[in-house]
């Protein structure tokens, strides 16, 4: 039994990465390295207005004053920012008018990933913005959404068509001065998605963006901006994959969400960037700044994330609860195996009165991975009668991995009520034994227990995603049962 368990656990740590193929697509690059000329070239290529170029340059100059932060519980190799290509785009011929004009190789890539770009094929009715390297390939259901007044397009299109909206909100939640990677992203960001839900509209379908890193030696720096006007509702999904490469690839994105009065935004991520091989070679560095601003009263932002990929994950999707009665939620499952490292969690900044937040985090570490949960709950002096509940559990599979929790609670208000609880343990032997006894092989039992453990978070995912996430969990733990 002991022997068997060890074998099984070994298998767990060797789960294959299924999205690791690379596509042969004609790609256009800018030379590697970062300087003002590159930024000007990026801006020019994207035909951007002057104010955006200035924004990029300001960010770049600020970035130059910063040094790479080292406080996380992560072992990050030195990154040479001059060795990265900051712009790579699949070559297009004057912009495809319809799907027929899109490079078939590109279509094939997304098909292989199970991402349908042909609207007629889509049964579930999810509007999709597919982003490959630095540009958006195709946004589906644009017209249908437009009927309701919902704007959903690539970031580049948004800059051209809705400059006032972009200008008003870009950098309003994550200013370029926020942190090292936010400054870098603000200087060089490529494409991304833009969504605006007008007053009183409940978005008729889920919006989704799919990010694919393909080109070699490139970094991906997308930017997502979601604005939900008064009484609007939207559910947004984000997925991502990358091919298997021996080199590390940098992904430094920014997601900004603004929820106005009584608006609700639900943002779900299934992050499956290439995690590197068993020995920890290659893999994506996922250094992302995600933040939502509950600007209006009674607004709500909910983050749900399933983190299975990336060599290093370093992100804290956060909520700034500015409006009175606003609420923020964070649900996370983070799985690390092999030599993966993760330092993830959230920040809940309570500013408005009677604001509420809830944090549920489930960490699973296997192999020789390190999985850290880090959170900040801040109750400012104005946040009267605010409430927070945090729960972070860690599950350890294997005796060489680490699970860590670093919560911070800063309470500057005597009417605040906070609860925080955390547990760390390994898979309960009694539960395993119980399953075995009823004829469930160990591998299945582990999968069952892990799925049950993560259920509280998986339940929060939209249906299509929940299926994918459950499958992903199973693949990640493949071999652990039986």
């Amino acid at each position, binding site marked *: 039994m002991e022997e068997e368990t060890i074998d099984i656990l070994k298998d767990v740590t060797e789960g294959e990465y299924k999205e690791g193929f690379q596509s042969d697509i004609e790609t256009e690059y800018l030379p590697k390295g970062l300087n003002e000329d590159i930024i000007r070239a990026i801006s020019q290529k994207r035909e951007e207005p002057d104010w955006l170029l200035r924004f990029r340059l300001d960010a770049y100059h600020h970035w130059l004053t910063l040094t790479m932060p080292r*406080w996380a*519980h992560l072992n990050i190799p030195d990154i040479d920012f001059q060795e990265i290509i900051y712009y790579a785009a699949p070559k297009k011929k004057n912009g495809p008018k319809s799907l027929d004009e899109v490079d078939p190789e590109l279509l094939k890539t997304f098909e292989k990933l199970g991402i349908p770009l042909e609207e007629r094929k889509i049964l579930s009715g999810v509007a999709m913005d597919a982003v490959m390297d630095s540009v958006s390939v195709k946004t589906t259901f644009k017209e249908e959404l437009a009927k309701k007044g919902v704007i959903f397009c690539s970031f580049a299109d948004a800059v051209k068509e809705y400059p006032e909206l972009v200008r008003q909100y870009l950098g309003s939640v994550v200013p370029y001065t926020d942190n090292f990677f936010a400054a870098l992203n603000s200087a060089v960001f490529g494409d991304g998605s833009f969504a605006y839900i007008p007053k009183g509209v409940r978005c008729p379908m889920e919006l989704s963006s799919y990010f694919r890193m393909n080109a070699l030696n490139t970094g991906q720096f997308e930017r997502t901006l979601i604005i939900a006007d008064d009484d609007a509702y939207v559910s947004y999904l984000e997925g991502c994959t990358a091919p298997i490469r021996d080199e590390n690839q940098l992904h430094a994105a920014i997601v900004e969400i603004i929820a106005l009065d009584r608006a609700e935004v639900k943002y779900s991520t299934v992050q499956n960037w290439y995690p590197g091989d068993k020995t920890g070679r290659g893999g994506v560095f996922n250094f992302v700044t995600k933040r939502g601003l509950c600007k209006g009263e009674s607004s709500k932002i909910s983050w749900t994330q399933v983190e299975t990929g990336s060599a290093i994950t370093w992100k804290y999707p956060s909520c700034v609860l500015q409006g009175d009665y606003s609420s923020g939620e964070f649900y996370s499952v983070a799985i690390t195996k092999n030599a993966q490292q993760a330092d993830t969690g959230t920040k809940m900044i309570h500013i408005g009165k009677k604001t509420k937040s809830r944090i549920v985090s489930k960490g699973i570490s296997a192999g020789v991975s390190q999985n850290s949960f880090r959170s900040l709950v801040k109750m400012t002096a104005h946040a009267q009668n605010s409430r927070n509940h945090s729960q972070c559990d*860690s599950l*350890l*599979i*294997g*005796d*060489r*991995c*680490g*699970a*860590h*929790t*670093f*919560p*911070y*609670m*800063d*309470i*500057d208000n*005597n*009417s*605040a*009520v*906070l*609860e*925080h*609880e*955390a*547990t*760390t*343990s*390994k898979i309960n032997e009694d539960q395993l034994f119980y399953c075995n006894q009823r004829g469930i092989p160990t591998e299945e039992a582990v999968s069952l227990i892990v799925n049950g453990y993560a259920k509280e978070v998986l339940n929060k995912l939209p249906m299509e995603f929940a299926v994918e996430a459950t499958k992903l969990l199973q693949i990640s733990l493949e071999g652990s049962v039986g």
Partner: protein
Amino acid sequence: MKYDTDYFESNRDSICQQCSPLLNRPRQEAFEVFRKNGFPAYGSEDYQHTDIENLLKINVGIHQRLTQQQAVRYMLSDRGMHPEPFHQDYLINGYAYKDASSRPLPEGIFSGGLNDFAEKYPDVFSAYYNRQAKQHGGGLSAFNTMFVRDGYVLYVPENKRSDAIIQLTHLVEAEEDAMVISRLLIILEKGAEARIAVYDRCPAEKAKSVTVQVSEIYAGENASLEFYHVEESAARSTLITDNFIRQERYSNVKLNTLSLENGITRNNYRVGLDGEYAEHILKGLVIADKEQHVDNHTVINHNVPHCHSDELFKYLLSEKSMGAFSGKINVAEDAQKTMAYQNHRNLLDGPDCRVFSKPQLEIYADDVKCSHGMTTGQMDETVLLYMRARGISEKEARMMLRVAFAGEIIEGIGDESLRENLRRWVENRLRTQND
């Protein structure tokens, strides 16, 4: 810092003259460490809420030893916890004094001054003094080692035990602004057993005093120690302590720290569970009002398998007080079957009080049971209503809830007379606060 290094260099000879050569031996090395590291930086991860350098920047001399006669005057003014039976020892401004009338301890147990101990047991002294502080302490411990002139030692040799509780009263009697450097060394050899209550008191209202205290505690195999630390000081006093505890196999240490009244307090506790089946229980109570500032920082290192630690800190804050708590549990690789629990509970009872909490787990072994919890809240209004409906005044009802909140820590105190004494103290403290 410049002031401190200069002060050390110009006063080194006079400091050394007053002390045993064994005490002087690590000074130079500590000086080098301090010169290199300085005080812990304000705003750094471990010192986010207490600015040590600023607190120690008072540029005053260190207290000189009082004569025995002067000391007796202070001893007589003391009000201790007086559990029954007890043995009394004194530290006044960091210097040890004997109370001749005190009940004697069993043969072989040493309780007294650091210099006396160095002379009487040079080998034991060398084996334990400044070991943990040097290994784990930073600039702060080095600063203490540089300037320390005397301190207190409890040495319980193998298989010895004391029935009487040892009460150590540390009085800081400042007529004018001054700094106190004090040192505790507690050594329990294999199978030894002791209970010690350290009562830190600085009643001076006028002068400003800063105490920097380093404690090193060793619990050998099968040893059992109960350590109670109670602070009751005036608003202008500052207490900074660096406490190191090392435990061997099957040892058991219960540590209670009660900050009942103070000015600014920062306590560091670093526990190393180095032998299998060692058990550590760390409990803290903070009652703070006015502009009091209490910052407790604890690190429990589970270095070997099968150890158990349990940590509970309760903060009762009102008015403009500030409480900070940082607790870290480290479970080393291969420290399987570890059980480590940590809890931090806050009751906020004033419009301007603040609390910062940071309970952390760092775990590198898989077969463990670890948890931490934190709650912050107010008095339960329904309970208050219930009591008021039964004719209890609001003031009294609140009082009862406060006492009950603090009760959980007091209940854990093993010795009955000490428990009752402390319960009375806490209640008294809460009542005066309520008025």
